């Protein structure tokens, strides 16, 4: 998977963050996060994670939502290999920070010199989804304006819908050999 193709990464991220793809693009961090994950765990494992996700989506299409969720839990979050990576990607979106993978993971699947804790950028901190999720603003950035503290926070509704349409589009494009 090339760094220039963020759509597969976005489809998975939409599913696991419960934010809409629109909100993920709105952070302005798509490329930076994709590059972060890619360099911290390597392209092969990332590709395996995304393929697993896509397979689950396609195979559970038309079935009850609980079926897809159950398979996500078993095959991704319950996987020794994919689980920690998936959790790290969620944290990355929410706080703009990459956390070092557990030692057990590195010992089993390979250590990487880039797998160290770091804040992706100042903008990544300000664009963390956690701020939107709690209806607050990042301290020291994106000030909400004079007197705004007098109003209660607005907590957004979560999309929480499967990204099946995106997954299918990615598949179609891949089959047609289109570079997106």
């Amino acid at each position: 998977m090339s760094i220039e193709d963020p759509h597969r990464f976005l489809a998975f991220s939409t599913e696991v963050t419960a934010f809409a793809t629109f909100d993920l693009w709105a952070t302005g961090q798509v490329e930076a996060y994709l590059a972060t994950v890619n360099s911290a765990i390597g392209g092969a494992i990332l590709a395996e994670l995304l393929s697993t996700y896509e397979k689950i989506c396609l195979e559970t299409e038309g079935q009850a939502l609980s079926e897809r969720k159950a398979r996500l839990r078993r095959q991704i979050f319950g996987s020794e290999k994919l689980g920690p990576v998936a959790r790290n990607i969620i944290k990355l979106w929410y706080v703009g920070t990459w956390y070092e993978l557990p030692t057990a993971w590195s010992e089993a699947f390979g250590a990487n010199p880039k797998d160290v804790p770091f804040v992706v950028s100042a903008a990544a901190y300000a664009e963390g989804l956690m701020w939107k999720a709690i209806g607050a603003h990042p301290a020291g950035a994106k000030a909400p304006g004079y007197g705004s503290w007098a109003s209660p926070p607005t907590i957004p509704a979560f999309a929480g819908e499967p990204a099946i349409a995106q997954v299918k589009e990615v598949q179609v494009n891949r089959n047609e050999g289109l570079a997106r």
Partner: protein
Amino acid sequence: MSDTITTIDALKEHLYLAMQLEHATIPPYLTALYSIKPGTNVDAVQVLRVVAVEEMLHLTIAANLLNAIGGTPDLTRPGFVPSYPAHLPDGETDFKVSLAPFTKETLAIFKKIERPRLAPGSKKLVKRLYRGSVTVLGTYPGADDMQYYSIGDFYAAIEDGFDRLEKEAKVAGKTIFIGDRKRQVTSEYYYSGGGELFPVTDIGSAKKAIRLVMEQGEGAGGGIYDHERELAHYYRFDELDRERYYQPEDTAGHPTGPTFSVDWHAVYPVKTDLKLGDIDRKKSPELYEAALSFNQTYAEFLGQLTQAFNGQPQLLLQAVPRMFEFRNLMGDLIRNPLPDSGGHYAMATFEIGDNQVLRTVAIEEAGA
């Protein structure tokens, strides 16, 4: 036709157009500002932000002028927000102002908006023909084919109008300044101003208000700095163009201050003058909804400002968080790729429909 303002109704209509004109510059400035990638181009961000805030001040000053003579500011009137691109006068010719990313070309248009210029002779109005569908700013009320030679001439006509009508009224033992003093918006209601907001109650304060608008924008009168020793907008844009700061004692076109650099690549290539209809609703439902709700929220905001300018200035304080919200919403749109557009990004379309319901509500609430 006469290029002078001879009736109070004509003056009121000119001041409505002044509000429209001042507002019309804000969406283009904000679009360019938020198209700049976060963390880059700090100089350009600072200039664009300051200019946008001062345009908001000018809008409020125009409302004060209108209120001073017993007018009713109405930002919800159909057509108040132009359909972009909109035409503006620039001497013998005109130019189009668009909602576009921050580029060298956009900056050239911004310089034209703020360019100091007055008609060479006494004739301030020129005849121009447009297709019926385009928005033309700075026209003569009631004669859409007649446009002021420049924005400077437009304001000069307003100043003359105030002078003439007040003198006539004085002769008859009256005054044109019959507006309710409580409708004036002053600094206590206006956050982070861009200048002091004083009440307009007589010919002296009216002229002072008009001068402030002209000087901050164009540096009218030939100076590059205004009374408060602040650089006029035109020269702030010129700084970005030349990548060099002006300092006191500099002359127009020759800044001698520190240099800086503009990174023209650190900008989201938003689609110029994007319309809601250009977004595929089926393919990008989230994007479509976000753009639509921005327009709806903005229309409500204009309703809120209308109430504030109609006797409830305290509402302006509530409007502040809303403006910061617009910053976030615009940023969200601008960072979203626009599918099937050849690599362009989305943006807020500022399509504010003829929302009669909203308008009526705003006016009624203001009157209540």
